[in-house]
């Protein structure tokens, strides 16, 4: 697994609280049994009318194509646990999410696929959204070792649970390989739990 210490790129502001994963990816696209095409669908119903014509949305704007940092507000990614949501964002090109707050399951899912999610104060998020709305070409650096976002002379402090941060910066975010290494200890834990031994039938 690669070490993810720094994300450098342009940013796309997605304004609004409580943007749920149904809005990030409508459920009908969850009928696909692979994640392969998810990059075509982020915010689909907010980007396209029923006849296929485009609506106004940052993901449709030319100046945000190639942006790699999403700047959201509070409770971003709430609702359904569908990993299809971070998959859709990542396959569109998002490599990091900055928000006032993030839904727990969404943030965990992002870490699992190597997309850091960090939080910043409401004021700082508003400033970043304003900056990237006015100047979509502004380049941001999210530094996970210093836990700051730098742009121009400005430096903004960000937060992230340390376990997730360490997983990314040290390149150990493939939790499966960590977990299966301890299979003997898992057996010991299971053996201590009374219910594992209960007869079921």
């Amino acid at each position, binding site marked *: 697994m690669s070490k993810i210490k720094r994300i450098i790129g342009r940013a796309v502001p997605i304004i609004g609280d*409580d943007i749920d994963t149904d809005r990030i990816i409508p459920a009908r696209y969850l009928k696909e049994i692979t994640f392969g095409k998810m990059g075509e669908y982020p915010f689909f119903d907010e980007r396209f009318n029923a006849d296929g014509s485009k609506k106004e949305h940052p993901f449709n704007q030319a100046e945000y194509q190639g942006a790699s940092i999403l700047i959201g507000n509070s409770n971003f990614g709430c609702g359904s646990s569908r*990993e299809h949501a971070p998959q859709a964002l990542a396959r569109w090109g998002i490599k990091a999410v900055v928000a006032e707050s993030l*839904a727990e399951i969404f943030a965990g*899912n992002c870490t699992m696929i190597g997309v850091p999610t960090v939080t910043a104060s409401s004021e700082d998020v508003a400033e970043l959204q304003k900056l990237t709305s006015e100047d979509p070409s502004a380049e941001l650096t999210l530094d996970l070792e210093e836990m700051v976002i730098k742009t121009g002379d400005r430096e903004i402090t960000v937060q992230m649970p340390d376990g997730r941060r360490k997983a990314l910066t040290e390149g150990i975010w493939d939790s499966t390989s960590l977990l*299966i290494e301890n299979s003997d200890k898992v057996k010991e834990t299971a053996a201590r739990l009374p219910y594992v031994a209960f007869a079921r039938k």
Partner: protein
Amino acid sequence: MAKGTLYNKIWDSHSVTTLPTGQTQLFVGLHLVHEVTSPQAFDMLRERNLKVAYPDRTFATIDHIVPTSTHHRPFEDGQAEQMMRAIEVNAKEFGLNFFNFESGRQGIVHIIGPELGLTQPGMTIACGDSHTSTHGAFGTLSFGVGTSQVRDVLASQCLAMDRMKVRRVEINGKLGRGVTPKDVVLYIINRLGVKGGIGYVYEYAGEVFDRMTMEGRMTVCNMSIEGGARAGYVNPDETTFEYLAGREYAPKGADWDKAVAYWKSVASDADAEYDDVVRYDAADIEPMVTWGVTPGQSVRISQPLPDPGATGDDGDRKSMELAYRHMKLNPGQKMVETKIDVAFIGSCTNGRISDLRAAAEVVRGHKVAGSVRAFVVPGSMQVRKQAIEEGLDKVFQSAGFEWREAGCSMCLAMNPDRLQGDQISASSSNRNFIGRQGSPTGRTLLMSPAMVAAAAIEGHVTDIRDFAAEGAQHV
């Protein structure tokens, strides 16, 4: 923190080790699997040449994509049929327990876990579904995960997790007439907000929960996630044990006594410490209905809709303005009399037998309004069977409701049941998000099953307390 709580006890007993990231490796006692969030996880196992570590602790079923007009195969929708075949192949190849149609035990994953007695106090339970919080009703630590974490659980029976905080949500007093567990949880989310629970597990306690049935507790815990809490629980008690006794997978014989002793031991201690405590008065809760596009945008049925200008929070104001635009409703109006097009009774929140009984009680002897399309979708094949034995199917059908097969149906748009255009539905489900019920302009009003039934008959949102009074006059 949270010393002496059920959360801490279960967390500690299921902690395997500390990972190099500093996170805890947590053992998962029961892994529930459904067709939508698992196919990619099984593919990842194949790519890595891994097996399912504990197939005997892994139970799969089918719910989201299942058409509920008929379970006949092959499904008309080719994608749904393909997804169905994928889980059939995966269950067989990896040796999982699989509750398919033929087993007679298929249903919404959060309905069948409890009804089969698989869900037991003191367990950790994971599923690739956010409403896994439902199982907390039994005094478990249960949470939703994404597909890569489904892979983790399949491969290791474990998850890499960070410890959460515990908030005790205590409600004392007596619930008023017409106030159901659905109203209780909508009230809690309204008070604490849809993001109030981020980082927390909710412990529901107090007289209201002590008196609540298991099915009611499931409704409340189910919607913990709508308040931002990944998990919620009620401490196990006699009501819990009574529900479990005799269930198919519940402990039997000598194991039953051992089990009850263990179950009692996991309940929070009287002197447990909490990271936060909130207290509400049951008398303050009325029948609730959502008016907006988050489950927190709700109102007590007698109250007018809130004024966005009155909120001090800029984000909240913008959310409310968006909600009013989408819902085509106005501040100051009341929800009663709001016309509906669709009435949906079902889902993992309110698709259990007690929900169907409550709705049937309202419906009995009435007819669905001509302008409303109404349907009842039992949460599982067993719920459906029980309802038929009690004659509830006849009650619903003679009133003009469609009577369906078990599945998730119109709670989410993954099967043929969807809103059209900007239709308004009165729904017993859990999410009123924009587009949730299948139309980008569709509108959802969340409420209790009895309130959905009353709305179906009147053709508009109705205060169940008035409806009941009216019914009494007719007698």
